[in-house]
């Protein structure tokens, strides 16, 4: 078993969804339930392989790549099929492997208009492969390919199954992300050429840069290209404008996947690629990244307070929450990066959950306009309580997962990496702390106006408004359980991420600035 996992484990995990796609293609469109079972089987098959690897993962050695494969791929451009899992990618992989099957279960009776379950589920599976591949890639070219693969399914998911403004949102999402990744590719190639490396291997490139005869200006420019690629994906202020549109217009499943996993591709890129390879340039950029992060926190929060649409409000809250993640990363300390990884997982679970609820509310009320909603606790008490728990988690209540993403990130900015201005980051810290107050304001306000009170007259006798259904329980329960469990046992994640995070922190410290 160990041998199989070592050689084929990651490959099987990443490409099993595509096998599912191939099988589904062969089945005619009208066999809808078979399509659903095939899609679910493919994603669960992938998850089973993933869980086996998590089981066999050597947690004492989470700083090294495990189950690593390094096989020749396109030799002429020295791109290799190099994959592996370490403590940094493991939590995000686990998140992806969990969320996609849940989304598929939720889709069981929630295929959005205009239907066509076959195409919809195929897109989710393609997305699955793209996301998993990005988290395991150790080669920049391979990373780029997987990073881009997720564009296509998301574009179609928003464009075909989205809301009224779907065409605008889809093209905006696509062009923004493509712009970033085009510059990112130029950066990757420039890095490859200036280091004179023989491969695109991330560790190899980092070693070449560390040997150090590359001018700081070049490093800063290359980092800038990567910053565009990853920063737009996160998204950081001022590149965030695609996000509210994409989130609001996407179907529920698309919003959940966007929030839970896709945004993390950007932050993961920072801690996996940009900072470890170019720590010196990262020090130059960190004050600016921190600045944009806290602007994002405040701007996102203020944006939330101005929203009249529940889904759009949650989308803006994503901008704010990813701001905390980026602030943690900007400190360039192991503490901050640990917080960032935790924040990614927590945000994935919590915001994913919020989008699930928003989707179900929309299905019942046919609107997400906050002022028309109300009394969810009376009409659908269980769903109302779940909304309550999730908003509490989202505003960072201790004891739930959200706390461990935000609080350590704020704490980390008290003492940023050597070479960064303490004063500046302490200012950021204060601003970020104010952001948590605003977060409490908009989330409680949301909860109050949708869940409390009495149902508005137009919905009071609406037979379509009912409480949870079975697939919703099945899809949501694991996420809720994890939100609580991680809130009490944050060490589940911190123990895994600590070694790789401190390796990044050490790389920055080693510069001795």
């Amino acid at each position: 078993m160990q041998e199989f996992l070592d050689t084929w484990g990651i490959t099987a995990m990443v490409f099993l969804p595509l096998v599912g796609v191939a099988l589904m293609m062969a089945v005619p469109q009208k066999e809808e339930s078979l399509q659903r079972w095939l899609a679910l089987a493919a994603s669960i098959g992938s998850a089973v392989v993933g869980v086996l690897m998590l089981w066999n993962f050597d947690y004492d050695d989470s700083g090294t790549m495990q189950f690593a494969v390094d096989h020749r791929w396109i030799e002429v451009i020295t791109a290799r099929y190099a994959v592996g899992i370490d403590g940094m990618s493991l939590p995000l992989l686990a998140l992806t492997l969990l969320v996609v099957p849940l989304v598929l279960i939720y889709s069981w009776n929630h295929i959005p208009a205009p239907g066509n379950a076959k195409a919809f589920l195929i897109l989710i599976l393609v997305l699955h492969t793209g996301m998993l591949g990005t988290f395991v890639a150790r080669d920049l070219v391979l990373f780029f390919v997987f990073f881009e693969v997720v564009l296509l399914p998301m574009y179609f998911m928003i464009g075909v199954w989205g809301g009224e403004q779907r065409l605008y949102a889809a093209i905006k999402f696509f062009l923004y992300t493509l712009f970033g990744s085009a510059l990112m590719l130029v950066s990757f190639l420039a890095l490859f050429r200036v280091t004179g490396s023989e491969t695109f291997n991330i560790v190899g490139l980092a070693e070449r840069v560390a040997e150090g005869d590359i001018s700081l200006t070049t490093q800063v420019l290359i980092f800038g290209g990567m910053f565009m690629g990853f920063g737009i994906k996160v998204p950081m202020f001022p590149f965030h404008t695609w996000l509210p549109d994409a989130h609001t217009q996407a179907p529920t499943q698309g919003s959940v996947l966007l929030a839970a996993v896709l945004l993390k591709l950007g932050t993961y890129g920072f801690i996996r690629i940009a900072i470890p390879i170019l720590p010196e340039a990262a020090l130059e950029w960190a004050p600016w990244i921190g600045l944009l992060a806290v602007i994002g926190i405040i701007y996102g929060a203020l944006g939330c307070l101005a929203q009249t649409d529940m889904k759009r409000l949650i989308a803006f809250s994503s901008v704010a929450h990813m701001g905390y993640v980026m602030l943690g990363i900007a400190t360039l300390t192991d503490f901050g990066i640990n917080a960032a990884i935790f924040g990614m997982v927590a945000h994935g679970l919590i915001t994913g959950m919020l989008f699930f609820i928003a989707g179900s509310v929309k299905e019942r009320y046919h609107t997400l306009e906050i002022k028309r909603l109300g009394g969810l606790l009376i009409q659908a008490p269980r769903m109302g309580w779940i909304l309550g728990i999730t908003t509490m988690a989202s505003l960072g209540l201790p004891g739930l997962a959200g706390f461990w993403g935000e609080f350590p990130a704020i704490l980390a900015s008290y003492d940023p990496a050597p070479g960064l201005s303490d004063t500046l980051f302490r200012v950021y810290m204060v601003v970020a702390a104010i952001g948590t107050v605003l977060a409490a304001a908009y989330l409680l306000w949301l909860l109050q106006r949708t869940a409390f009170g009495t149902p508005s007259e137009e919905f009071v006798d609406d037979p379509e408004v009912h409480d949870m259904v079975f697939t919703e329980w099945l899809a949501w329960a694991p996420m809720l359980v994890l939100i609580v469990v991680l809130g009490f046992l944050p060490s589940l994640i911190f123990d895994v991420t600590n070694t790789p995070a401190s390796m990044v922190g050490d790389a920055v410290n080693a510069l001795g600035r």
Partner: protein
Amino acid sequence: MPSTLWGADVGSIVAGLLATTTADTAEFVRPAIDWHAFAPELIVLGWGALVTVIDIIGLERTRRFMPSLTGIGFLLAMIPVLTLWDLDGDLPRVLFDGAYVVDNYALVLKGLFLLSGYVIVLLSTNYMAEGDYHDSEFYQLIAASVLGMLVMTSARDLVSIFIALELVSIPAYLMAAWRKRDLKSNEAGLKYMLMGVFASGILLYGMSMLYGAAGDTRLSVIGESLAGDADGVSPFIVIGTLFTIIGFAFKVSAVPFHTWAPDTYEGAPTPLTAFLAVASKAAGFVGLVTIVLDGLREVPSIVEPLMWILAALTMTVGNLIALRQTNVVRMLAYSGIAQAGYMMAPLAVYSTSPELVRESIVTYLVIYAAMNLGAFAVVIVAARKTRSGEIESFGGLFRYAPGVTVTMTVFLFSLTGIPPMGGWLAKFQVFNALIEGRTGWGVGLAVIASINSVVAAFYYLNVAKFMWFMPAPDDDYSPIRVPSALIFALGVTVIVTVISGVSPLVPDLTDFTEVATAGP
């Protein structure tokens, strides 16, 4: 008439040639001909003649076999291309004192042109048979043009490059005006012919100066003799280089010499448009690459800035105008101009690593051929039902032709450069070549290209938007019947497009590290 226009130049070159040959050799000795190396050209030539004779004898009775016969000819010619491939490591085979070279570079391109020719025949089959055209002659002209392309891949001599270029172009002038009752087609043919002839004149003028400077028409000799003047390049060589490159810039429709392309593309029969946009343009590129990398290899100080400006202009202007197009063929024409800009870009930095530049351009040509021919195939398929070239006519395609829509989507995303479709690898190789020299100019051009690829995404996705998200313009959702020839063409192009994006197939083919610069 063109011939009188160039009379003086042709005359002087021929006279010069005669003078050198008579001076060097007292009596004429027939050079040894490597028949095997020359076989692909001979097969296309012989088969084309045979098909013509069959047509003359059979007339109406044999007409319907013409496309298949022509196609078979191209496939037959593939056999020697395959047998020549690095046989016993005896490549490159040098013929005619270095004027004609068969190496891996030439063979990959010969394969590309033969297969493109084959796909074009598949695209034309129903189009020609169903329109009221002279169809047999059309295929004979295609064969003649492909023959020119085959010659172009191996030509390492100014005269043979020029002859190859004319052999590619002259049949295309005729074919562009093939829909003779349509004014637009007449316009297409006339414009193309006039601009083409004009470009040939400029090219020949430039070539005559290069010949004058070097005293030989072989590129290898020209390359060496220009090396001597590397410090102070004489104005004579500057003008010769400039005119030669501008002549090719017309042929590959580089901005600002592109104005003929959209009108010609729109008016010409669509299969011929595909031929012009892919095969004919590629032939122009092959000539340009060969001349620059072999003949002008020592004067990058003239060529590189020129190519930089041409490439940056071509990709930017092509993309910006493509944004505004409402006709899908015109859109593809302008997008093809933009793509030519990407292909040209590596020539702006060729002095540091000529072989990488050559590889990246050929990689681009191969992948571009597959995805663009595929896109044109879909246009032809869709127009069979809609009878329209407007982008709006693609509305609702997903509902009545899901398979075609998916393949078109593959081509569009490949053209945009999104993995896992082949286009990303083509762009990657171009960026790779641009950044390799680590110069600010190269990286700057790469950044311009990457921003352009975002602009391009908008209009490619616009087509996808109509296919997937919009209703059919006239609410006609009756399914379309796709002829088997077109299905086959779509299958071939889509498979090549996808495979080339995920496997090392194309880069392995275009790895010419062993190519020697052709010497006598």
